[in-house]
């Protein structure tokens, strides 16, 4: 069955900000449990496409969408879809690490707390969940003595890993990443990439990146977008080595612009 292989499927997806069309007839299938990279020049709709998948676009004002988006086989524009549940399943990591201005501990629990009745989480459960989430992103050893520290005071690399860890207690299926490494140094970038490699399989990753070396390193499939259109979507190696579309070739061989 197709839905087993594809976590995200869109058909003829178009999107407008007011009168400006940001996405044009995008049809794409994102494989489950793999890392897919989304590349292309700035302002070509990569982030917009990402934001479609948890419908958070609609919080940003005057947005119109047309076409179909299926997440895990379910059309997310069906009337019985709860946006809040959708956003639990489809997590997002941002360009600039954005831990909330509360403690590390409460950052991890924030998602669970807003989705469960007040006081339903016992102290022991909470402790376990925090340890598990931080362990999965290899932060437990660094932060186990700093759980009460403000998350915004951590190093950037730790902040970004925390932002990934924060999604995990909600048991997401898909993690969208919007240039997750562009604020990090080389070491932080590698650490986050490594983490994605380890977590892939358990989660489906879709990562927007401007760093083509990164796209090649981390992704199995790669999508090239240009001015709101999907130009080419193939296996990463094939896309970089034998691009089919001349625009893709220009971009991946740095002849763009």
């Amino acid at each position: 069955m197709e839905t087993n292989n594809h976590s995200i499927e869109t058909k003829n997806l178009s999107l407008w900000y007011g009168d400006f069309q940001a996405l044009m007839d995008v049809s794409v299938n994102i494989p489950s449990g793999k890392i897919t990279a989304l590349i292309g020049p700035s302002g070509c709709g990569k982030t917009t496409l990402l934001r479609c998948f948890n419908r958070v676009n609609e919080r940003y004002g005057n947005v119109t969408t047309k076409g179909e988006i299926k997440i895990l086989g379910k059309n997310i524009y069906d009337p019985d879809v709860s946006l809040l549940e959708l956003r639990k399943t489809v997590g997002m990591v941002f360009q600039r690490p954005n831990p909330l201005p509360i403690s590390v501990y409460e950052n991890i629990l924030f998602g669970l707390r807003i989705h469960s009745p007040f006081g339903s989480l016992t102290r022991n459960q909470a402790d376990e969940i925090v340890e598990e989430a931080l362990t999965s992103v290899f932060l437990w050893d660094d932060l186990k003595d700093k759980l009460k520290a403000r998350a915004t005071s951590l190093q950037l690399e730790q902040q970004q890993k925390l932002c990934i860890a924060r999604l995990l207690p909600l048991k997401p299926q898909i993690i969208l990443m919007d240039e997750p490494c562009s604020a990090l140094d080389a070491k932080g970038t590698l650490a986050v990439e490594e983490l994605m490699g380890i977590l892939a399989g358990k989660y489906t990753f879709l990562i927007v990146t401007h760093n083509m070396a990164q796209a090649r390193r981390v992704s199995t499939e790669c999508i090239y977008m240009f001015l709101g259109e999907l130009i080419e979507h193939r296996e990463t190696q094939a896309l970089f080595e034998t691009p089919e579309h001349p625009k893709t070739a220009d971009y991946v061989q740095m002849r763009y612009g």
Partner: protein
Amino acid sequence: MDSNTDISPELMFTETDIGRRNRFVENVFKIFFFIMTCLMILPLLLIIGYLFYKALPVLSLDFLFTNPKDNMRAGGLWAPFLGTIYLVVVSLLVAAPIGVFSAVYLNEYARENWFTRIVNLAVVNLAGVPSIVHALFGVGAFVLFAGLGESILAASLTLAIMTLPVIIASTTEALKAVPMSFREACWNLGATRWQTIRRIVLPNSISGILTGVILQVSRAAGETAPIMFTGAVFYKAIAEGNVFAYNITDQCMALSLHLYTISTQVPDVTEGIPYGTAIVLVGSVLLVNAAAIVLRVYLRTRKRW
């Protein structure tokens, strides 16, 4: 090495004529701005100093806690002092929730459309309306139309209408200062707008919001026009030392109006009394402002990002 200058390394960093001129102009402006700053502080110090000097003979705790006597030629300030407190407190109890929550709605919920544009336009214009116009509106709307009569309630509502737009504006500023990325983080974890506001936006903007509200105390306490026709009276004796001496359907005395009365309408007032009244008015406002600053510093230590 290919040198593109004839100057020897010895003289390379010595000051040129243009450099000397730039340094001179730099100093002129630095001193100019400093003098302007002094000019700003000077009147404040002079006013307070002069008031204190003139008021010294009458200042005492009794002055605060006794009613005016002998047709306001002697005695204390109890009735006007308590009246001002009533007016300010009641007006803020009305204006603060309406102002703060409407700013939250405009900032956190409303999309940019014709409705929000009209509201914002109204806020800006309302803030620019002279207080005497608010007074006339208060007479028409609260005293006559709503049938409240001349009362603390009617006067307070008039003051509330006057302070409302400024509270909305300052709350909006405070909310805008909370980075958008915090909201995005919450939304993408499936938080509703209310959860985002309750858990992240309000805790991080509360210091700014409270400061904006408290600063309106001084405006509400100082205004004379809006209360003159809506609830403040020239003279009214009340039980001394009883903080519940006024009922909100009563008329009341107020410091600002009292100061006007005894300075211009009553002959032979004991010399220190108008100055003492001014000191009490200015002093209580400064006290409240100082409290606002302390509160803000305290709340700010709890937020860091």
